[in-house]
C-alpha cells in the first residue's frame, strides 16, 4: 500500500531536497534582527551554544554565544549554517495526504488527525495493539523523548516502540550499564584538558564533534599523549602520537592484547581492582593467550605499536578514554566497549580529576534521548521495563495500572523486519529516517511498502516520509522549547526562537492531540514544555538518570546542570564515581570478559574488500536537514569511495573513476577518491545520502546480541570499476540531492 504515490523525481521536484543559500525572505534583517535567541545547535552531541538572529518570526542568521562555557563561541560549519533550514522552501507547512498517482495533497489537521486515529484503531482492533509500532529519534528534546515513551505506552498501548539511538550508541549504553550500572560519560570535558594520555577509539572527532577538538589540542599543549584507533588517518589521527590503523571489526582483539600487556607488565592499580571491582580474574583469563603477535595478525596493527600503546596507557597517572560509532557499530559493539572499559578499570583511572571514560554521542540529544523511555526496553529515569518495581513506579506517575503497561518490544531494525514479515501493520514515526539510516535499506523500503498505514511526523518530506499515507507537519528545533542533555551529561535549555510557519505545529501539540483522540487526553494535559519537564523530573526520581533536582531556572542560571541531580539543593554531577560507589547492585565496577570474535560478514574470495561507513563534517546523519543547506552540500557534494592506492591499483581504479560497489545486499556507484589515508584492505563511504547514493544499501543488518545495534562499520564488498570517470560534481545526481 505504501508504495510511492508518484515517481521519486516528481516528489523531489515538489518537496526537495533543494539547496538553500539564503533565508527565504533574503538577508533582510540580517544586520538588524528583532532579537537574538540563546539556544544550542540542533546537530551533534556537543550541543554548542549559539544565538539565532530573528526577524519577523524567521531565523535570518546566527551570532556566536561567547559566554556558553563549553564552546565559548566555537562552532563547526553545520552549526553556523543551520539557520538556513528555517523557513526553507521545502518546509512542510500543512499536513499532507497521499493521493495515488498524483502525489501528496495538503489537508487540514482535522482530516489528517481523524484519518490517522481511525487507522490506528482499525489496525489495533484487527491485529492487536502491538501491530501498530512507533519509531522515534534522539534529535528530539528530553521533553519530547519522554512524551513519546508515554504516548506509545499509554495512548497507543503498544510494546513496539524504539528509537534511532539504536543505530547510534546503544552498544556503549549496554556496556556502561554492565560495567558501572549507569549509562553516562564519567566526566565533563574539562577533565580532558589535563589528562596525561588520551585514547580515542573509533571516533573521527575532528569531523563529527569538531568543537571537542579544542579540548584535545589544549590537552596536548599541556603535554598529553594522544592514541587514536581508526582505519583511516582522520584529521585527529594525523596529529596523534600513536595511530593504530585497526582492521575494521577487530577492535576487541586490540583491547584484549593491551589488557594482557597491562597484566604482564603489572601496570595495574591493584588497590582499586581489589576494593572496587569484580570480575577481574575471569576477564584477564579470557585474554591470557592474546599475544602481541596474535593481535598483530588479527588487527593488522604492528605488534610494536600495540606494545607502545599499552605502555603509554599503562604508565600514565591520568587518562581519558573515549570512543564512538567506530567501535560501537558492530555485531560485538558491546564487547568492544567492554574491552575499553576493562583498560580503564585495570588502571583504576576513573572518578578522579583528569581521568575519564565515555562515549561521544553523535546525535544532538544522544545522551538525554536514551534516558527518558522511548527505547523498547526502558522507562524514564533509565528504568528497566521488565523490572516490576520500576514499572509500578512509572505506572503511578502516569496514573495507569501497571498491568496495562506494555512490556518490552522489538528494537528498531527488528521492527522493520517484523513489518517486512507482515506482523506489524501500522507505523508512526517521528524524527527518524530509516530509509537512509538503517542498514540493508532495500529491505526497509520493501517493508514500508507492506504497511497498511504509515503516518510520519516531520518538517521535511524525507526519504522515509515519502512512503507515508499521512504526513503531520511538525516543528524544527528552533520552534520548540525544551531541554537536551549534551554528550558530557550537561542538561541545557533549548529556547524557541520562532513559531512554526504556516499550518505546521509543534511536535508536542501533535502528540497531545493524537493522545486525546485516542482517549488518553487527561494523561497529556501539559500546559507547556516546562510542565512536561516537571513530570519527567518526577518520573526520573530515584532512577539512575535522576533529573529531579534540575529545573529550567537552574539550567539557565548555571549554563546547564549535570545529571544525576537528585534534589533541588544538589549541585549536579560533572564527575561521576568520586565516592567509588558504582551504580551496580554490589556497588562495584564490573570487569567483563570481552573475548575476540570475527565480524558477522568476513571478507572472502567473492567479496574481498572490507567496507566501512561514517560521516563527513558538513553533513549530519541521514542528511534530511544538511542536504538542504547549499553551503554544506557544496563543501562535500557527493559521497566518495575512499580507497588506498595499492588497492586501487589492484582493481585498475584511478582518482574520480566511477566504481560499482557490490555487497550481498545491494550495489551502488561512487566516484573513487584515491588516498593513502586509509588502510589498504578497506574502503570508506559516508552514509548521509539517500536513493542511488545511499551507502546503507550495502551495509548489513547483523545485530549485536545485547544492544541490537547493526554492524554498519564492517561488511564484505567487491569493487567493479566502470571504466569511466565520474561526471563533474555539478552534474551528479547526489549534488542535486536525489
Amino acid at each position, binding site marked *: 500500500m505504501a508504495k510511492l504515490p508518484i515517481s521519486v523525481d516528481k516528489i523531489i521536484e515538489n518537496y526537495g531536497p533543494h539547496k538553500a*543559500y*539564503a533565508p527565504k525572505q533574503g*538577508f533582510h534583517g*540580517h*544586520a538588524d534582527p528583532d532579537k537574538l535567541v540563546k539556544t544550542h545547535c540542533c546537530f551533534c552531541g556537543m550541543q554548542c551554544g549559539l544565538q539565532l538572529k530573528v526577524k519577523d518570526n524567521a531565523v535570518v*542568521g*546566527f551570532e*556566536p554565544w*561567547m559566554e556558553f562555557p563549553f*564552546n565559548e*563561541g*566555537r*562552532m*563547526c*560549519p553545520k*552549526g*553556523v*549554517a543551520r539557520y538556513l533550514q528555517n523557513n526553507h522552501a521545502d518546509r512542510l507547512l500543512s499536513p499532507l495526504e497521499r493521493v495515488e498517482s498524483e502525489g501528496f495533497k495538503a489537508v487540514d489537521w482535522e482530516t489528517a488527525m481523524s484519518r490517522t486515529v481511525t487507522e490506528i484503531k482499525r489496525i489495533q482492533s484487527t491485529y492487536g495493539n502491538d501491530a501498530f509500532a512507533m519509531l522515534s529519534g534522539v534529535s528530539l528534546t528530553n521533553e519530547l523523548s519522554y512524551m513519546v515513551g508515554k504516548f506509545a505506552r499509554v495512548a497507543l498501548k503498544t510494546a513496539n516502540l524504539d528509537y534511532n539511538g539504536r543505530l547510534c550508541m546503544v552498544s556503549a549504553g549496554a556496556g556502561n550499564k554492565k560495567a558501572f550500572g549507569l549509562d553516562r560519560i564519567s566526566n565533563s570535558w574539562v577533565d580532558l584538558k589535563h589528562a596525561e594520555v588520551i585514547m580515542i577509539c573509533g571516533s573521527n572527532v*575532528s*569531523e563529527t564533534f*569538531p*568543537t571537542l*577538538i*579544542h579540548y584535545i*589540542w*589544549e590537552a596536548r*599543549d599541556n603535554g598529553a599523549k594522544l592514541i587514536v584507533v581508526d582505519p583511516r*588517518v*582522520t*584529521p*585527529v589521527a*594525523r*596529529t596523534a602520537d600513536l595511530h593504530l590503523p585497526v582492521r575494521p571489526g577487530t577492535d576487541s582483539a586490540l583491547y584484549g592484547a593491551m589488557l594482557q600487556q597491562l597484566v604482564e607488565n603489572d601496570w595495574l592499580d591493584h588497590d582499586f581492582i581489589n576494593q572496587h571491582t569484580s570480575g577481574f580474574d575471569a576477564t584477564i583469563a579470557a585474554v591470557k593467550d592474546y599475544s602481541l603477535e596474535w593481535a598483530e595478525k588479527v588487527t593488522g596493527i604492528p605488534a610494536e605499536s600495540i606494545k607502545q600503546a599499552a605502555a603509554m596507557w599503562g604508565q600514565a597517572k591520568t587518562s581519558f578514554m573515549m570512543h564512538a560509532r567506530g567501535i560501537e557499530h558492530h555485531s560485538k559493539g558491546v564487547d568492544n566497549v567492554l574491552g575499553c572499559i576493562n583498560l580503564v578499570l585495570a588502571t583504576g583511572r576513573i572518578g578522579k580529576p583528569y581521568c575519564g571514560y565515555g562515549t561521544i554521542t553523535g546525535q544532538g540529544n544522544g545522551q538525554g534521548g536514551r534516558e527518558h523511555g522511548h527505547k523498547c526496553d526502558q522507562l524514564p529515569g533509565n528504568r528497566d521495563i521488565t523490572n516490576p518495581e520500576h514499572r509500578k513506579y512509572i505506572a503511578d506517575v502516569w496514573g495507569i495500572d501497571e498491568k496495562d503497561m506494555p512490556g518490552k518490544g522489538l528494537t528498531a531494525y527488528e521492527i522493520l523486519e517484523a513489518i517486512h514479515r507482515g506482523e506489524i501493520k501500522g507505523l508512526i514515526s517521528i524524527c527518524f529516517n530509516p530509509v537512509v539510516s538503517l542498514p540493508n535499506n532495500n529491505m526497509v523500503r520493501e517493508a514500508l511498502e507492506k504497511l497498511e498505514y504509515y503516518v510520519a511526523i516531520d518538517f521535511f518530506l524525507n526519504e522515509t516520509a515519502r512512503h507515508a499515507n499521512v504526513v503531520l507537519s511538525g516543528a524544527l528545533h528552533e520552534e520548540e522549547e525544551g531541554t537536551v542533555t549534551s554528550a558530557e551529561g550537561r542538561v541545557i535549555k533549548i529556547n524557541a526562537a520562532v513559531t512554526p510557519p504556516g499550518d505546521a505545529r509543534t511536535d508536542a501539540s501533535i502528540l497531545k492531540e493524537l493522545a486525546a483522540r485516542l482517549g488518553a487526553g487527561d494523561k497529556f494535559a501539559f500546559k507547556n514544555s516546562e510542565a512536561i519537564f516537571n513530570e519527567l523530573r518526577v518520573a526520573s526520581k530515584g532512577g539512575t538518570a535522576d533529573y529531579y533536582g534540575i529545573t529550567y531556572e537552574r539550567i539557565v542560571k548555571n549554563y546547564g546542570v549535570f545529571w544525576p541531580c537528585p534534589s533541588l539543593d544538589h549541585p549536579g554531577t560533572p564527575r561521576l564515581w568520586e565516592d567509588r560507589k558504582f551504580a551496580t547492585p554490589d556497588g562495584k565496577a564490573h570487569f567483563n570478559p570481552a573475548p575476540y570474535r570475527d565480524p558477522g560478514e568476513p571478507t572472502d574470495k567473492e567479496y574481498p574488500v572490507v567496507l566501512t561507513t561514517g560521516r563527513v*563534517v*558538513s553533513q549530519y546523519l541521514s542528511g534530511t536537514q544538511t542536504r538542504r543547506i547549499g*553551503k*554544506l552540500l557544496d*563543501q562535500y557534494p557527493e559521497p566518495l569511495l575512499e580507497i588506498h*592506492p595499492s588497492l586501487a591499483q589492484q582493481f585498475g581504479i584511478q*582518482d574520480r573513476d566511477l566504481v560499482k560497489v557490490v555487497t550481498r545486499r545491494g550495489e551502488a556507484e561512487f566516484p573513487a*577518491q*584515491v*588516498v*593513502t*589515508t586509509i588502510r589498504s584492505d578497506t574502503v570508506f563511504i559516508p552514509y548521509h545520502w539517500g536513493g542511488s547514493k545511499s551507502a546503507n544499501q550495502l551495509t548489513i543488518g547483523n545485530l549485536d546480541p545485547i544492544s541490537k545495534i547493526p554492524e554498519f562499520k564492517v561488511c564484505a564488498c567487491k569493487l567493479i570499476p566502470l571504466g569511466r570517470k565520474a561526471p563533474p560534481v555539478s552534474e551528479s545526481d547526489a549534488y542535486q540531492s536525489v
Partner: protein
Amino acid sequence: MAEPEKNFDQDMEFFVDMQRCISCHACETACAECETNGQETMIHVNYVDRAHSVQTTVQVCMHCEDPACANVCPADAISKDSNGVVHSANTSRCIGCSNCVMACPFGVPKKMEAAELMMKCNLCYDRTSVGKKPMCATVCPSGALYYGTREEMRKKRPNSDPVNTFKFGAQTVHTKVNVMMPKGSKELKVH
C-alpha cells in the same frame, strides 16, 4: 590613513596555527555571514595534498605592515588604517585591475568576477572595531585561528612562538597576523 575606531583593541592580535586545522571550513562558512562581505567568504581552506594527507592550510589576509596590495593599487582603493588593518578595496574606487591580486606575496586578494571588484578580509572591521572578535577566529573549533592578546597566546601554547616576519627571497614582510611556529622560531622563510 583612515582614522582608528576608538573601540578597536590594539592589544588583540590574530594567530594562525595550521597544525591544528581540521579542514572543517567553519571559518569560511562564518566569514560569509559577516554583514560586510556580501555572503562571500574572505578566508580559504585548501588541502595541501589530499592524496597523501588530510592536512589543510588556511589562507587569510596577513594585514602587512607595508601592504604590497595597497602599494600597487593605481586607484588608491586599498587603505591601511592606524590599527594596522588593511581594508578591502573601496567599492567606489576599485577598477578591478587585479594588480593587488598579483602583488600580494601571500596570494590573498581575490577578484570577484561578477562584481568586478577586489575583495579580501578586513579583519571583520565591523566586529573588531566594536570590541568583538572576527567571525572566523570566533568559530574555529580547533583553535587554528585565534584572536586575542600575545600574552594569552603564550600561556595557551607554551610549545609554539608566534611569527610575523616572512622572508620571500630577499624581501622581508612584517605582518599584523601571526603564524604559530615551533618554539624559538623568529621568522618564516617562504622561498
